[in-house]
């Protein structure tokens, strides 16, 4: 029960993008087309799941036993950077079109705050191994959902008559605000968790 609660909380109630503001850069950058949003979402979910596992292991079997908690940030970011490198090589080899579509945003997953944010939140809340895993997957799914909804809206937006200064980033942020408002409705589902 607890695991499901953590998963749902991370995916919708406290959606990483819309209520923690994590992963905004790719959210604004890659959400122009549904197909690239889906690819980015999968890449992030994948990296996130692996990162959740590895960072937990590192924290509990390396940093804590040796009394090195101050190295937490450096260690986490190194894990994430190498995971991203791995995913990049994998996509380049196996799914070249997707690799082309994601372009510059793939290396940018390294600096995607959602990934490090997930690792830090899990560490801060002292989740155990399974909780961390579910939290990681939930956060990735939540990120994908937000990105997909946004991409769907932005495809329609191409034909809309938006005031000139708001075109591009301005209107995207305002739409994100309205989406966040809608997602706040989910908070009623499980109190304030």
């Amino acid at each position, binding site marked *: 029960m607890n695991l499901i609660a953590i998963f749902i909380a991370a995916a919708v109630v406290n959606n990483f993008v819309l209520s923690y*503001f994590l992963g905004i850069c790719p959210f604004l950058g890659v959400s122009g087309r549904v197909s690239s949003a889906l690819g980015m979402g999968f890449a992030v979910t994948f990296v996130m799941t692996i990162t959740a596992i590895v960072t937990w292991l590192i924290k509990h079997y390396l940093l804590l036993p040796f009394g090195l908690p101050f190295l937490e940030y450096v260690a986490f970011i190194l894990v994430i950077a190498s995971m991203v490198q791995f995913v990049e090589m994998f996509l380049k080899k196996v799914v070249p079109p997707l690799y082309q579509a994601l372009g510059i945003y793939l290396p940018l997953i390294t600096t995607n705050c959602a990934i490090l944010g997930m690792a830090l939140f899990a560490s801060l809340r002292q989740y155990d191994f399974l909780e961390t895993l579910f939290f990681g997957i939930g956060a990735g799914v939540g990120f994908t959902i937000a990105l997909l909804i946004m991409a769907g809206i932005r495809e329609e937006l191409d034909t809309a008559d938006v005031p000139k*200064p708001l075109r591009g980033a301005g209107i995207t942020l305002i739409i994100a*605000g309205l989406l966040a408002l809608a997602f706040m409705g989910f908070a009623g589902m499980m109190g304030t968790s």
Partner: protein
Amino acid sequence: MKKGSAIYEFLKGIWKDNPVLVMLLGMCPVLAVSNTVINGFAMGMAVLFVLVMSSLVISTIKRIIPSQVRIPSFIIVIATFVTIADLFLRAQFPDISKALGPFIPLIIVNCIILARQEAFASKNNPWKSLLDALGMSIGFTWVLVLLGLVRELLGFGTVAGFRVFGTWFEPWIVMILPPGAFITLGIFVGLQKLIMRRTG
């Protein structure tokens, strides 16, 4: 103001290439901690420290970093300074540290910092990199403080903790919640574009 001159490198981050309003970098802390003026200012100062120190270090050692591993090297330098800033805040300003929570360590992955290292500090001398870093972080801070001002004023009726509106004021709770952050910043971005166009 010639392109490439020292004064240009300093001023461009404040308005023309503002990291938040124009380049849309480092949005997470902008949106997350701009619910009050104090939080916004504290985050701005933390970013200033990390950006200036990492730019100085990286522009100094850029020749000895092999280009294949430059990104990981940049990140380790950045993570080191963020750890310093985090420990300092925790010791000196525990209240602010608690309010900002994980958003201090998240400066590591703030795109502004990595982007400035990749686009500027790794190609320029320490003096110019220092000016660039200062300009960028001041540009980042003023947007954050202004955003905090608007959101705090409308959301709590206060500015930096002082009550501005009387008891008649009904706070707009939405302004201090996530949607308020997105919408206010969206309007800011639009306004910046509008002013840029008017002034050329």
